[in-house]
C-alpha cells in the first residue's frame, strides 16, 4: 500500500516538494491549496532572486546557509528541465564607503564557508565597466556571478504541472480546517472540501504555517508577516544588467535595483513588520514606497519620473520565530513535517528544501522511498508568441489561427497563448476562472497599459472556455468578479 502524503500549500516550497515526491512509486501525493491557483501566496510577490548563498550566517541560520547554495545549484538544473523563464546575470553588492569593504570581506568569507563559487571583490573601474548607470559614489563591489532571477509564479506553475503529470493530485480552493491526529500519529487533513486521508502531512502553508502547526498541537513557533513594497517601470526605462544590492547594514539587506526577467526595471523591497493578524495586508503605502524610492536612488540615481511607473505592489515574507527555516519531522506527532518560516532565501532554497523533506521522510519516518521507473523530469513551457521567430509563428498559426491573433498588445500575447494557458489551468485543477491565472502564465495585462485593452478580451475567453457568464469571471478568485451582472442587472433590480 502506498504512503499517502498531504502537502499543505502550493507555493514554491509545496510545489517543489510535490515534484520531488512524485518521483516515488510508493507515495500518493496530494497538494492542497486554499487559493484558486498555485503560487498566489508568498511566492507571488518578492524580488524573484536566486540568491548566491553568501548572505546567511551558518552559525545563526544553519538551515538557510545550507539550503540556499544547494538550492541555487539545483535551480540551474531545474530551470532547464522545466523550461522556467530565468536569467543568470549575477549580483553586485555595491560599496560606497571605505568601511563597506569590511562588510564585503565578511560576506566573501561567509560565502566561501557556505561553498559559494566564483565570488570576488572588484574595483571601481571594473564595476563601472559592468554597470555604467550606478551611482558615481560607488567605489567597488562584491561580484557574485551565480546569482540569477526567475519568474516565481511561472516556476510554481511549472513545478505543479510537472508534479501533476507525474501523478500528484491537486486540491485547489481547499482550505485546511484541522489536522486529525490519533495516538500521536497524523491521520489526515480536514478541509472545507471534506477529509483527505494522509499518513504524512507536510506543512508548507507559508504565512499560515504557525496556524496549521497549531492544528496538530505544535505551537513552538509563530510566523509574522514582513511587508516589502516594490516599483515596476515600463520596459523602455533603462535598468542595470545585474542585480544590484547596497552593502548590507545590520538592520537591512537594502533596496535592490534590478531588471526583472521581462525587462522591466524593478526596485524594492523595504521591510515593514506587521502584526501576526495582518497576514492578508498586501496594500502598498505612500510611506513604504517613498522609502523604496529613496533607497533605490542611492544606487541608481537616474530613476525615471514617477509617470513611468507601471505597477506598484507589495508582498509578505513569513518571518519565523528564531529567523531560521523550520524544516523537520515533529517528534510529538508522527508523520507531521513542518516546512515553516520559509522567508528569504526561500525561493532559492525551494529545490533543496524538497530534497531535505524527502530525506526526512526516509531518515526520520523510516519510509524507504522507491523511485518510479518512469518519472518524467521534463515539462514544456507554454507557447509565448512574443518569443517565436516569424516563421515559427507562421507554422503554428497554420495549425491554429488563434496563435495569429494578438490579445495583449503591449506584450504581444496571442489568443492561442491564452487558450493554452486556460487548458493548463484546467490540467492542474483550477476551478475558478481568473484573469490573474492567465496573466501569470502568459504575461498578458502586465505591460504598459496594465490590461485596460486586453482584460475584457481575456474575460470573454475565460467565460467561454469555463462555460460561465463573463461577469462571473474573476480577477483573482471569488469575491473579485469582473462585474456585478449584465448591463441591465441593476435596472431589473437584480445583481449577481
Amino acid at each position, binding site marked *: 500500500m502506498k504512503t499517502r502524503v498531504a502537502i499543505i500549500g502550493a507555493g514554491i516550497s509545496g510545489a517543489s516538494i510535490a515534484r520531488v515526491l512524485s518521483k516515488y512509486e510508493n507515495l500518493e501525493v496530494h497538494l492542497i491549496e486554499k487559493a484558486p491557483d498555485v503560487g498566489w501566496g508568498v511566492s507571488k510577490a518578492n524580488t524573484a532572486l536566486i540568491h548566491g548563498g553568501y548572505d546567511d550566517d551558518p552559525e545563526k541560520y544553519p538551515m538557510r546557509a545550507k539550503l540556499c547554495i544547494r538550492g541555487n545549484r539545483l535551480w540551474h538544473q531545474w530551470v532547464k528541465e522545466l523550461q522556467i523563464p530565468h536569467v543568470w546575470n549575477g549580483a553586485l553588492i555595491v560599496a560606497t564607503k571605505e568601511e563597506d569593504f569590511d562588510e564585503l570581506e565578511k560576506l566573501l568569507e561567509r560565502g566561501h564557508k557556505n561553498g559559494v563559487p566564483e565570488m570576488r571583490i572588484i574595483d571601481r573601474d571594473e564595476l563601472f565597466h559592468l554597470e555604467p548607470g550606478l551611482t558615481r559614489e560607488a567605489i567597488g563591489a562584491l561580484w557574485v556571478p551565480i546569482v540569477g532571477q526567475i519568474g516565481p509564479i511561472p516556476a510554481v506553475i511549472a513545478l505543479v504541472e510537472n508534479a501533476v503529470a507525474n501523478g500528484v493530485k491537486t486540491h485547489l480552493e481547499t482550505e485546511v480546517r484541522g489536522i486529525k491526529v490519533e495516538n500521536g500519529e497524523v491521520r489526515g487533513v480536514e478541509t472545507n472540501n471534506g477529509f483527505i486521508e494522509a499518513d504524512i502531512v507536510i506543512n508548507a502553508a507559508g504565512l499560515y504555517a504557525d496556524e496549521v502547526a497549531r492544528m496538530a498541537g505544535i505551537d513552538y513557533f509563530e510566523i509574522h508577516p514582513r511587508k516589502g513594497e516594490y516599483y515596476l517601470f515600463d520596459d523602455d526605462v533603462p535598468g542595470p544588467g545585474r542585480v544590484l544590492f547596497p552593502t548590507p547594514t545590520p538592520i537591512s539587506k537594502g533596496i535592490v535595483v534590478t531588471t526583472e526577467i521581462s525587462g522591466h526595471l524593478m526596485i524594492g523591497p523595504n521591510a515593514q513588520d506587521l502584526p501576526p493578524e495582518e497576514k492578508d495586508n498586501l496594500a502598498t503605502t505612500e510611506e513604504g514606497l517613498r522609502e523604496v524610492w529613496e533607497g533605490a536612488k542611492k544606487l541608481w540615481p537616474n530613476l525615471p519620473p514617477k509617470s513611468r511607473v507601471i505597477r506598484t505592489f507589495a508582498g509578505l515574507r513569513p518571518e519565523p520565530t528564531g529567523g531560521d527555516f523550520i524544516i523537520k519531522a515533529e517528534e510529538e506527532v508522527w508523520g507531521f513535517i513542518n516546512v515553516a518560516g520559509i522567508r528569504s532565501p526561500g525561493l532559492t532554497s525551494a529545490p533543496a528544501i524538497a530534497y531535505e523533506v524527502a530525506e526526512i521522510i526516509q531518515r526520520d519516518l523510516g519510509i524507504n522511498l522507491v523511485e518510479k521507473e518512469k518519472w518524467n523530469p521534463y515539462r514544456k513551457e507554454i507557447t509565448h508568441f512574443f518569443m517565436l521567430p516569424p516563421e515559427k509563428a507562421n507554422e503554428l498559426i497554420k495549425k491554429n489561427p488563434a496563435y495569429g491573433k494578438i490579445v495583449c498588445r503591449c506584450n504581444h500575447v496571442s489568443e492561442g497563448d491564452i487558450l493554452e494557458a486556460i487548458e493548463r489551468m484546467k490540467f492542474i485543477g483550477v476551478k475558478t476562472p481568473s484573469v490573474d491565472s492567465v496573466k501569470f502564465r502568459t504575461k498578458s495585462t502586465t505591460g504598459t497599459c496594465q490590461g485596460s485593452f486586453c482584460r475584457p478580451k481575456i474575460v470573454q475567453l475565460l467565460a467561454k472556455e469555463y462555460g460561465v457568464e463573463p461577469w462571473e469571471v474573476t480577477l483573482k478568485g471569488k469575491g473579485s468578479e469582473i462585474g456585478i451582472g449584465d*448591463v*441591465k442587472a441593476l*435596472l*431589473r433590480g437584480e445583481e449577481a
Partner: protein
Amino acid sequence: MIYRFTCIVCPLGCSIEVEMENGEVLGVTGHTCPRGMEWAIEEVTNPRRVVMSVVPVEGGALPTVSVKTAEPVPKEKIPELMKFLAKLKLKAPVNVGQVVAEWEGIKIVATRGA
C-alpha cells in the same frame, strides 16, 4: 426661484440665470445670444435629453447593440425609459439606423449593427 446654468450652446459657456414663478418665466439674464436664451428657458421648463444605451442581442458578432432615442426625451421620463430598455432583447441581424422598438411614441434606433 432662480435657476443657474452654464450655457452649452457654444464654447463661450455663458452663465445664464432664469427666474421662474408658478411655471412662468419672469426673466433671463447672462446670455449673450438668443439661442442661449432659448436653450436656458427650455432647460428650465422642459429639459430633454437624447438617451443612449446598449441592449443584448443574440447571434451577433458582439453581445450588445447600442441604441439611442430618435429624439430627445423629457428628463424626468428617462428612468422609466431605461426600465423599458432593460427588458429588450434583440436578435441579429440588426442594422445601423433600424428602429428596434418604440416607447411612448419615441423610436429606439440601433446605432451599432449586429
